[in-house]
């Protein structure tokens, strides 16, 4: 296990440099004049241009110049300095403000998926081919079939604007109640997948040989299901939820955009729209780390849950 973790950490270093390099290249390759982009519509004086060229090492051109600037950026990054966005704000500060909001939103979404998705999935798995099972199948297909870009505005319009059950938008520094509707919308997709996964897993495990053994020991049915079947069925579900939490932590561009939530996805989207290269690269670099770490945690969790899994 220890060797596995060390090897994975080394792989993460490679993955980190690879992804940041690609994002860095993509973001700055398309730009015409970065100094003009920084200044926006205002004219740039020769002195300013010379200062900025010096500061960002823009005098070096070609591939050599690109790598010079990339390593310059990375060395700042490794010192914890994410740099400044084109609007002049520290990217570290932007993320520090945005992340708590996104984490709250992600936790609400995961809670929704666990409480409703896993519970309904277990029931549907036990009562296979029942009305409940078929109803959940229909509903989950519906949810999985509607893209968030449609679902989010619909929920906002009906639940937020028309019936006014929830705040229609979140705004700066949102509270739990303001994040509830976006959280449910965001979680509905995870909910549907978690439900299908749980249902299949429970139904499959109920037919397993060890269930027959547990029954032949004279255990009551509720113990057979709640201990023997559930413990096995939840292995893939917990793995999925772990990966999903990692995904949700990296922000939800559409949901945060629709409900005006100042989270990570919201800032990332703004960065892309305003061609704010440093902001986009900064956020993505951190997201890469979050994603890699959450995947490692899930892999380790998997070995903890299933004693048959051994990492070398």
């Amino acid at each position, binding site marked *: 296990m220890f060797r596995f973790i060390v090897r994975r950490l080394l792989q993460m270093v490679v993955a980190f440099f690879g992804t940041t390099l690609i994002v860095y290249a993509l973001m700055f390759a398309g730009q015409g004049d970065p100094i003009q982009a920084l200044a926006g519509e205002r004219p740039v004086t020769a002195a300013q241009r010379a200062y900025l060229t010096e500061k960002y090492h823009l005098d070096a051109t070609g591939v050599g110049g690109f790598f010079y600037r990339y390593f310059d950026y990375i060395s700042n990054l490794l010192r914890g300095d994410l740099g400044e966005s084109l609007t002049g704000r520290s990217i570290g500060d932007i993320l520090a403000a945005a992340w708590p909001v996104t984490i709250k939103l992600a936790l609400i979404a995961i809670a929704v998926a666990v409480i409703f998705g896993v519970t309904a999935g277990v029931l549907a798995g036990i009562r296979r081919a029942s009305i409940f099972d078929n109803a959940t199948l229909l509903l989950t297909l519906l949810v999985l079939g509607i893209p968030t870009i449609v679902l989010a505005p619909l929920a906002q319009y009906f639940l937020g604007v028309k019936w006014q059950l929830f705040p229609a938008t979140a705004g700066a520094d949102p509270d739990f109640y303001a994040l509830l509707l976006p959280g449910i919308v965001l979680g509905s997709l995870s909910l549907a997948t978690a439900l299908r996964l749980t249902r299949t897993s429970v139904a499959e495990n109920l037919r*397993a*040989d060890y269930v*027959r053994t547990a029954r032949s*020991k*004279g255990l*009551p049915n509720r113990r057979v299901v709640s201990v023997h079947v559930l413990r096995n069925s939840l*292995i893939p579900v917990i793995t999925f939820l772990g990966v999903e939490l990692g995904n949700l932590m990296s922000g939800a561009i559409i949901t945060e955009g629709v409900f005006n939530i100042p989270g990570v996805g919201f800032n990332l989207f703004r960065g892309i729209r305003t061609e704010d290269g440093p902001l986009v690269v900064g956020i993505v670099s951190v997201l890469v780390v979050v994603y890699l770490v959450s995947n490692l945690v899930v892999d380790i969790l998997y070995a903890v849950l*299933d004693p048959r899994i051994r990492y070398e």
Partner: protein
Amino acid sequence: MSQYAVRPTPASPTPPGGHLLEVRDLHIEFRTGEGVAKVINGVSYHLDPGETLAVLGESGSGKSVTAQAIMGILDSPPAHISSGEIRYQGRDLLGLPEERRRQVRGKEIAMIFQDALSALNPVFPVGWQIGETLRQRLGMSRADARRRAVELMDLVQIPAAAKRLGDYPHQFSGGMRQRVMIAMALAMEPKVLIADEPTTALDVTVQAQIMDLLADLRRDLDMAMILITHDLGVVADVADRIAVMYAGRIVEHADVRSLYRAPAHPYTKGLLESIPRLDQRGGKLSTIRGLPPNLMRIPSGCPFHPRCPYAQQVCVDVVPHDLVLGDGRTSACHFAQEVHDDRTH
């Protein structure tokens, strides 16, 4: 109603207190989308204290289904018990409510399965799985259950039992895993042990060890045992009586010696002749021609007639009753006596 005639009770006399376990004219169907499969068609057998009954037959002959019906662990749907009785100590188990039925499971009648790797729960340590029965059913404390689990593992001769308590099923060899399974079944000292092909998934050398262990335990703990197998070789040393099943019926029922000496049903005869023998090296091994019947379309008359070398017109038309032969054995064949006396094969 079934297409088969109700058959007379088996030949051996009922002891004064009744048999320990008795299956009477059991009929079980599997109702699936494709149709109804008649899996058990009037099976009757019994078990007395301290004896070993071997139930022999090919895959699909219904030997495991009968055992699962006794345990009450059939998956229904699709399984449906249409008629019959399963009497344990005089009570009909099929008439009991589920909660009373559950009390019998494991404590009175326990069962071990063919493939211990899949029959044990992969995510719990073996000590925990053995102890679970003791904690849940007998209300033992965690520490007591642990101690007892070690004793049981010692009993089935698992080396270094105390050290292996925390190991998971996949960390054991096939033979050791089956021993764990046996230890678990013995936890509540059942009076009847049903062993469903306990050695099929094992190496030949290990098979013999497990069979010896089962025979020893049966004797030492004074249990009765139903040994389900398709392997005639396994049966000879261990069993007292043999019931041969075909297409959900018992076609022959006899004590081990007389059955091996002179089978009275063509199917049993075919099975015995298909065992490779050292004194007939070089000769062509005889087989039973054809395939077991589709249980949704069981042949008319005697279900074995399409594969039977003795078959006549009567076998196509009439379902054979159990014929009682001189030495207290039965055979469901119109020509039982002829088969019994025929030594040409």
